[in-house]
């Protein structure tokens, strides 16, 4: 069945691309978990928050317009300007840095030394809080997100004609690959390279790795934990911004974005919580796995298996290897 095989190959490629998107969200989790031991459930909502802020700033929306209108009876909604995408990205990054500072200053500073599970639940609270704030600031309606460098060079959308034509020439069947997925892959590769260079070759990056390795030793050689944690949350905020822009451009900025980001959790479990390569490999495995499963088995059992396949795969995998593919071995002492 060469035709089925070709379909399968197309599904496989699309799965790889979807996996990159999952890996983008998972990266932020790994960064924070390595440096502070906090399992940041709010990473998905941070991506949503970042994407909404990006759209809001770009379109010149008035923050909290809804609330202000309700209290004062005014009818404001837009400042009436449109910002360049790069400027909006820059401003959103500043917002994410402020958020990182606030999170550290008002929440986790008071929770140092608490059990990991308490920290985890605090991040669930943070997720609710951020989601509410994002909705209050920018309104909950679905928004479209466009990133444009100039007026007519935007982030490409839709089917890639070149791949379609080439594969049609080779196999007699054109592959459907979304342009956006290709750019997401490129952006993800760039992001990972930047992160690796940052953590390997800069002073702050070295300090970050030192903190990740051993808090107390890092503290004793004069690294400020507080500063590093704010830095890590900022970097995670920036990763969330990139993920948010990519997901937002793909499927619109809306609440379900934070649910898609839940998919990053099984990715992490598969790859291990402490490993950046693990996040990427895990993302690819989950992406390919769920697309292929839906393609091969889905029609037999009613479809929409993508909702749960990732979780069940991770669950089964964990039973055999509790620390994930690349995670550090879990050693327990009494």
């Amino acid at each position, binding site marked *: 069945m060469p035709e089925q095989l070709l379909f399968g190959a197309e599904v496989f490629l699309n799965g790889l691309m979807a996996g990159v998107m999952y890996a983008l969200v998972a990266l932020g989790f790994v960064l924070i978990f390595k440096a502070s031991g906090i399992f940041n459930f709010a990473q998905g909502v941070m991506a949503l928050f970042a994407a909404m802020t990006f759209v809001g700033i770009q379109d010149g929306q008035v923050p909290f317009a809804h609330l202000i209108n309700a209290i004062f009876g005014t009818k404001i909604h837009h400042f009436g300007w449109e910002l360049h995408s790069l400027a909006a990205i820059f401003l959103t990054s500043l917002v994410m840095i402020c958020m990182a500072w606030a999170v550290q200053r008002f929440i986790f500073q008071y929770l140092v030394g608490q059990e*990991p599970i308490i920290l985890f639940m605090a991040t*669930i609270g943070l997720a*609710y809080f951020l989601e*509410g704030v994002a909705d209050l600031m920018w309104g909950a309606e679905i928004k479209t997100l466009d990133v444009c460098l100039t007026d007519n060079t935007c982030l490409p959308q839709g089917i890639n004609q070149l791949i379609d034509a080439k594969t049609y020439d080779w196999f007699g069947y054109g592959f459907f690959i979304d342009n956006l997925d290709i750019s997401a892959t490129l952006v993800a590769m760039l992001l990972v390279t930047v992160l690796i260079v940052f953590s390997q070759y800069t002073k702050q990056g070295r300090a970050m790795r030192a903190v990740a390795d051993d808090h107390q030793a890092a503290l004793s050689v004069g690294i400020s934990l507080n500063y590093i944690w704010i830095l890590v949350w900022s970097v995670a905020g920036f990763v969330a911004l990139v993920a948010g822009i990519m997901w937002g451009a793909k499927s619109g900025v809306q609440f379900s974005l934070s649910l898609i980001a*839940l998919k990053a*959790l*099984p990715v992490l479990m598969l790859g291990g919580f402490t490993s950046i390569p693990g996040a990427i490999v895990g993302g690819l495995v989950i992406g390919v796995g769920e697309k292929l499963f839906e393609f091969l088995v889905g029609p037999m059992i009613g479809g929409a298996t993508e909702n749960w396949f990732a979780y069940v795969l991770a669950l089964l995998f*964990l039973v055999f290897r509790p620390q994930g593919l690349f995670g550090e071995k879990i050693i327990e002492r*009494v």
Partner: protein
Amino acid sequence: MFYREAGDFKTSYVSDSQTFPIAFDRYCYFVTLFIGVVVLPFVVNDYIVSAILAPFFIYSIAAIGLNILTGYCGQVSLGTGGFMAVGAYSCYKLMTGFPEVSILLHVVMAGAITAIVGAIFGLPSLRIKGFYLAVATLAAQFFLVWLFNKVSWFYNYSASGQISAPERTVLSIPVTGPNVEPWAMYLICFAFAFISAVLARNLTRGSLGRTWMAIRDMDIAAEIIGVNPLRAKLTAFAVSSFFIGVSGALFFAVYLGAAEAGDSFGIQKSFIVLFMIIIGGLGSIFGSFAGAALLVVLPVFLKLLGVDLMGWPTDLVAHIQLVIVGFLIILFLVLEPHGLAQLWRLGKEKLRLWPFPH
């Protein structure tokens, strides 16, 4: 002055180990029960029952269930919504399959079926711990909801994919279906919540509860002193799921009347119940009630204040509610990790010493 043990002599082990050792607490408890059983059924109206009392009791049962698993046994679960769906759908299948059997039995049987499902999904907890397990329970949540949406046997092949409760009676008074009187709905929820609380309280202070707490405090140490982790964890999952299943069955059959797995038992349910026990207090039966009360009353209160009084749009108030709930969670974890129950305990301790604290 009267909140003392002084003068209240215990002459047997039974009276020494009772739940409320202080006489004043005991009287309060009986007065509350009296009001709940004799007074409230005559004064409640439809709005109070359907907006506050019925969801409060049903969520309390779910919170007690999750508290047994998370608060007493230390296993965080995000699958509560899925297990509530199991309770609801098995109750529906039993109600339609065996119409001659009492609905009370159906609800209990639904709990038992959920207990079995919960124990199966609890199996991985023997290998994985902490937030790995929390994420693994998401598998239960998403898989179960998907199953109830896709397999039409579960909703008796109805065209809408919904399940709706037929009319069933207790002592020839309808308790499910469209003709339920508010007081009947109130009483059945109250009865189940009361029995659940008594059961849970006695389970958690017995030997089973002590093995759960040993596992929670340090599982390896517990294993060394002879606690069987397989038994402890699986019983925790089963008992917890039993209560959650009962609450899911009541939520569907008595409260909602008609339900659809994705809408009524989605991931949001899991979070709400988890928040109830965080705010109320992990490892406390009273805390389950307190947290459920707070999170049931808060939206009603905000809606009254925001929509009816200030005239704000509904979605704005919903967003403010998200912010407040998130803020409360963080506030409680920072200031009082043991929740409302600990505040209550501290208050009682103060009261015991008052007015001579030294």
